[in-house]
């Protein structure tokens, strides 16, 4: 396991940012997904010892966060959400400095800084002062300083924030490439669902400091495959009630059609059999949930309803 959390709580005074989270992030790429203020950044900062932990336990790469923070930081890379670049240093100087601070020998840090800057696409701009960089370049240099020491675990906090579509795509490609090349696990905190879909094997959905979903992307896609939008001819209310009786989840947001989520391992053509049984005719049957975004929105709606 890359990260293990047990009732992990981070609070700023009376405000609880991460509320007794119990979860584990296996090796690979995990997306930490949630709206703004969900506690994603606080969770990462708590794991790195950047903010104090109220209660609970956490381990990174089998090292206890409370007692072995210094050791952990040597093997972990962190790309913060903020700009956090040291003015006065060149791109090369900054990445080299970051490498040396992580414990790399000066010569290795220098050589590696060149390599990493080329890898993130800043090879030509490496002798420029970091304060002259554009937003996209700043995101890239932040990634470079986080990976210069080839960490075993990389925390990326909103890595595509402020980037144009092309830059965003390149950044996601870069993340995919890094996770594919080495033995590095990645935790990607973002509120952009597509970023998670494109880069991660697993997703942890966080809202109001609590875990709402912790699943493999593949499994979620399975869930997506069991939801359909249906339009019928006949007594719609009776058919909805009939479906609910068969264990289906029915959502009727549209006058023309309604969404049905079938029970697990129920093939879609069962709907036709049930329609015949209920005396209605199916006029339209299409997959209802097309993206992970729908799952995310659904979880948020559930969360919202629970707090009403």
């Amino acid at each position, binding site marked *: 396991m890359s990260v293990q959390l047990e009732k992990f709580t981070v609070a700023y005074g009376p405000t609880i940012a991460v509320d007794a989270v119990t979860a584990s992030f296996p090796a690979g790429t995990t997306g930490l997904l949630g709206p703004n203020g969900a506690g994603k950044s606080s969770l990462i900062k708590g794991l790195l010892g*950047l903010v104090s932990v109220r209660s609970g336990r956490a381990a990174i790469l089998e090292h206890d966060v409370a007692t072995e923070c210094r050791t952990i*930081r040597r093997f972990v890379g962190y790309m913060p959400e*903020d700009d956090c*670049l040291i003015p006065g240093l060149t791109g090369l*100087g900054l990445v080299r400095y970051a490498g040396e601070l992580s414990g790399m020998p000066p010569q290795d840090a220098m050589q590696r800084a060149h390599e990493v800057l080329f890898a993130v696409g800043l090879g030509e701009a490496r002798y420029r002062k970091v304060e002259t960089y554009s937003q996209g370049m700043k995101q890239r240099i932040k990634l470079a300083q986080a990976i210069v020491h080839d960490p075993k675990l990389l925390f990326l906090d909103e890595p595509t924030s402020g980037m144009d579509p092309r830059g965003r795509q390149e950044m996601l490609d870069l993340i995919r490439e890094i996770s594919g090349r080495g033995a590095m696990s990645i935790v990607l905190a973002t509120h952009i669902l597509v970023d998670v879909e494109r880069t991660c094997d697993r997703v942890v959905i966080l809202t109001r400091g609590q875990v709402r979903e912790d699943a493999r992307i593949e499994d979620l896609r399975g869930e997506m495959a069991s939801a359909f939008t249906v339009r019928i001819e006949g007594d719609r209310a009776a058919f909805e009630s009939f479906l609910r009786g068969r264990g289906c989840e029915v959502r009727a947001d549209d006058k023309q059609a309604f969404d049905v989520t079938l029970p697990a391992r129920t093939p879609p053509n069962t709907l036709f059999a049930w329609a015949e049984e209920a005396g209605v005719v199916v006029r339209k049957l299409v997959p209802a949930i097309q993206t992970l975004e729908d799952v995310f929105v659904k979880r948020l709606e559930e969360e919202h309803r629970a707090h009403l």
Partner: protein
Amino acid sequence: MPIYDQAYKPWEGAFVTKPGTWWVIARTGVRTVWQKWLILLLIFSSFPFAVRAVQIYLNSRIGGDSQFESIAKQLEIHGGFFEGFLKGQGFMLVLVLVIAGAGLIARDRESRALSLYFSRPVEFRDYVGGKFLILAFYAGLITLVPALLLFVIQLFLTGDASFFREFYWIPFSILGAFAVSVAVLGGMMLAVSAAAGSRSAAVVFFAVLWFPEIIRNILSRIPAAGYFSVGANLRQILSVFFGTERPYDFSTAGAAGALAVYLGISLAVLRLRIRPTEVIR
């Protein structure tokens, strides 16, 4: 196998733990801080050194000559000579500390770079220690190094061991005086840099140094008012190091205590202001 591959590659080297991240911070900081103003200041502050070196030379030439007895008396080399040199460099020391130190922590705070340090194996003591060494390096260039050099020149020009036998303690006194001055002034500069912005740090530092000095001058009839002045306390302690007459009426132990309090306050401010992440409530 590709001839040239710019893609990400794993690193297979080994980490080193010695001498520590404070050394990395100090080394990089010394290079980054080096700028035109500082170089000019360092050149300018070498003039007093040249004058003192000439004094040593003249003393070695006419010291034993009875014809120039009164002049030789004025040129005599003793503890007070070195104390005078260090006191004379005081203003330059403050300027160097301001130019090198005003932005040291303030700029890291303003650019939110502290999380970049503290997400690595860097502790508070490494960070502050590294930043302090940057100031100590530049302060040493205008105080410690020339003072020790003057001692060596004097030894060289005397040509016998009599001076060394009599004044062997002077290098230790120079070191001690340097350590106390830089610890207090450097600590205060770092604290001000952590508390104020990079643009206002210089003004705040001058205010912290000279406002109490003005108060002390106004209340000159009350000796205890001297405890509020960093400069007065430092001058009092320097006289102890060089075995010269105390410049003020207040107690030396009290002066040492006051300096310790200044240092303590500086550390407390640093503790309070150097946080890896700002919490906005």
